[in-house]
């Protein structure tokens, strides 16, 4: 069945309402292609979307999906995957959703290393609420709630992930469709938590981190002789604040996902229509 799946099968018939030119179009197209090209199909895929412009992705794609509350997409995705190891699980949301209100879950999702993919559409702004600064905004970024800059450091999500024990960290750019798709595919195929931060520009509220800015600043790790298996190299690239790298920054080939460590298999949905056969043993334990 998987061989006949085309990426448009992952598209719903709902027309996106994103602003024309929004980076999220490219981000989503790459995700759909990556899912199809890795042999997945919508009926066995579960997408969890955060709240934000980015979170609308759950509506525009076709699969099993939940659009939950702000910042809690990762735990939902983890719950889905642990309860059914046979599903392909992808979580997607904004930088506010993932690194601000949901930051606590991000660290723990990374260290738990569940076999799933997390795509963050990082536009360095709060889009849906119309242009307040976000956790990845630069310190001098002026917005409605930071008229003189944010007075605080931006968060470095890739560094957070690396220090939390990530097994896969990639950075992509939504308008580099081919490379973005390829990297999301690698994240899907990774045995563990595939974390992809996507530069996904907001054309309406962010006039600093624009397509032009990224095109100039981006350096592809493929041209840098970077070894993603080398932790120190990864660390150096991730902490380099001068450049915006795209590619796989870090990958641990020995990663063993949480589900496997827990000995989980298949789906937990199948249960008997009464108590399990030997359930009386549970009562006997209390003698």
């Amino acid at each position, binding site marked *: 069945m998987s061989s006949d799946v085309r990426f448009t099968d992952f598209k719903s018939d709902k027309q996106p309402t994103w602003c024309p030119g929004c980076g999220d179009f490219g981000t989503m197209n790459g995700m759909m292609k990556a899912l199809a090209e890795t042999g997945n199909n919508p009926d066995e895929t*579960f997408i969890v979307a955060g709240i934000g412009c980015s979170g609308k992705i*759950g*509506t525009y794609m076709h*699969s099993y*999906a939940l659009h939950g509350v702000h910042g809690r997409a990762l735990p939902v995705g983890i*719950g889905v995957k*642990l*309860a059914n190891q046979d599903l392909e699980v992808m979580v997607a949301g904004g930088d506010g959703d993932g690194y601000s209100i949901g930051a606590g879950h991000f660290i723990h999702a990374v260290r738990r290393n569940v076999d799933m993919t997390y795509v963050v559409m990082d536009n360095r702004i709060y889009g849906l609420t119309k242009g307040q600064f976000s956790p990845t905004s630069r310190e001098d970024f002026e917005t409605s709630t930071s008229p003189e800059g944010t007075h605080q450091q931006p968060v470095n999500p890739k560094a957070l992930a690396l220090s939390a024990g990530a097994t896969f960290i990639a950075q992509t750019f939504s308008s580099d469709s081919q490379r973005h798709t390829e990297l999301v595919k690698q994240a899907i195929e990774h045995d563990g938590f595939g974390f992809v931060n996507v530069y996904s520009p907001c054309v309406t509220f962010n006039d600093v981190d624009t397509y032009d800015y990224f095109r100039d600043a981006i350096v592809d790790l493929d041209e840098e002789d970077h070894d993603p298996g080398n932790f120190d190299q990864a660390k150096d690239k991730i902490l380099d604040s001068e450049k915006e790298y795209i590619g796989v920054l870090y990958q641990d080939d020995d990663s063993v996902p949480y589900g496997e460590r827990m000995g989980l298999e298949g789906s937990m949905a199948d249960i008997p229509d009464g*108590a399990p056969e030997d359930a009386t043993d549970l009562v006997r334990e*209390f003698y």
Partner: protein
Amino acid sequence: MHEDLNWAIGGEAGDGIDSTGKIFARALSRAGRHVYTSKDFASRIRGGYTAYKIRTSVDRVESVVDRLDILIALTERTIDENLDELHEGSVIIYDGEQTTMQDVEIPEGMIGLPVPLKDLGEEAGGAIMRNVVALGAACEVSNFPIENLDEALEKRFGDKGQAIVDNNKEAARLGQEYVREEFDAETDYDLECTDEDYVLLNGDEAIGMGAIAAGCRFYAGYPITPATDVMEYLTGRIEEYGGAVVQAEDELSAINLALGGARAGARAMTATSGPGIDLMTETFGLIATTETPLVIANVMRSGPSTGMPTKQEQGDLEQMLYGGHGEIPRFVLAPTTVAECFHKTVEAFNLAEKYQIPVYLTADLAMAVTEQTYDPDEFDMDAVEVDRGKVVDEAEVDEWLDEKGRFRPHAATEDGISPRAFPGTIDGAHMTTGLEHDELGRRTEEEDVRVDQVDKRQRKVETAQEREEWDYREFGDPDADTLVISWGSNEGAMREAIEFLEADGPDVRFISVPYIFPRPDLTEEVAAAEEVIVVECNATGQFADLVEHDTLTRVRRVNKYTGVRYKADELAEEIRSAVADMEATA
């Protein structure tokens, strides 16, 4: 002479009080005696003090009383803490060799038995066994055959090896012999054994066992007293049935993990207490709106805020009924005994799935973390039925597709219940969202669709009200003028209070209500009574408000919010004086 015996061991936190108490409770249970336990976690005077108390009888015991017959005091303070309950003839076992205990003064009329607990423990193999020495001494004082301890010691120490078990058995015997030889402590206490086989468990364990029996396979939680026992029970057991327990980073995560598990088709649950419920509340609305079946156990403790974490209270009723923004359909179940914790858990899972709705299952501290004996037949696994509701498989999915072949997870059916397709079901792919949505689960703000969806979610509740039985449990004299109503764990104390009142108090009809929403309509019962009293462990009378609302009748409120559960004799007195007062003013 004494029908019931009240026994306690107390000392500092870290003295192994809880596990020693449990050993004795188990020994009594194995000897065919009924046991009802309670715990003092914290001092009335200052922190650190803890005690494990056992009320035991050949007959069922369902409550604590204000009396202590045998006390093992590992510290002098333990005696001070219990002065109110100790009486003439009470026996106090303590280690007179301890420098801190040398000058202990045993109150007049009580029998002090200084036993060198630590020294005898060392003789048996280690000072750590001093508590078990004390258990042996207590066996002698209460004429309880020491062999009964052996099985409990094996259960407790079996995994540490036979040598440790044997040392502990020896320690108990040294304690017993010491008392036999050194004292001529003639007491009336006689712990008679029977051939009955009982199980000993607490409410949290009953909830955990009920969950596994009901097919719950996914549990996510964050530790919090007094709900942690549920998670600890499930850990190591649920895996045997193909399930998993996840310790989340916080309750926000816990409930969203559980939600994910449920969306994937697993029977899922989380358990927490007040502060955790606060954190879960935003997601609670999401669960209801997305029509996801989920069981959320709220093991209540004293609030608000951190309140008194190890103390009894029934203060979260309104939180569970009304918590969350917007209007959230939900069920709230409140088992009234430890055994009911098991049965209501099974029921909660069935209700959650049949009506695709979040279900609060609430226990309170008094029954959640204290052990009680039961006939094992009370937990009849053959009687457990699993009803998953309107789950559609591949063959049935077609019936629920729209004209464009899209699955309708929120189809506005006549009974309000929509089809449910688990991920992996071919052609069932669908989304859902916490935004108001149409039948397809997609965002909408169209007025008529909004109204349709609100109505269909409400209709499910009405369907449940019609189809299910929302009964109460009844005790006492059905024709009595005085009607007492309570919810949650007060049932045990109230049932025994009725026995106290039989001698010289008013006749009482007692209704114990295990359903908060939907709940039984008590209009007729209230109308038939002269006096109506609602008993609960909170300050404002949250359930009394509901009864008044439902029956349009003023009720008398009997409330306790000291942090300590009702004792049967105390509650009898409360009822007696409430009735006298009401009659006087009538």
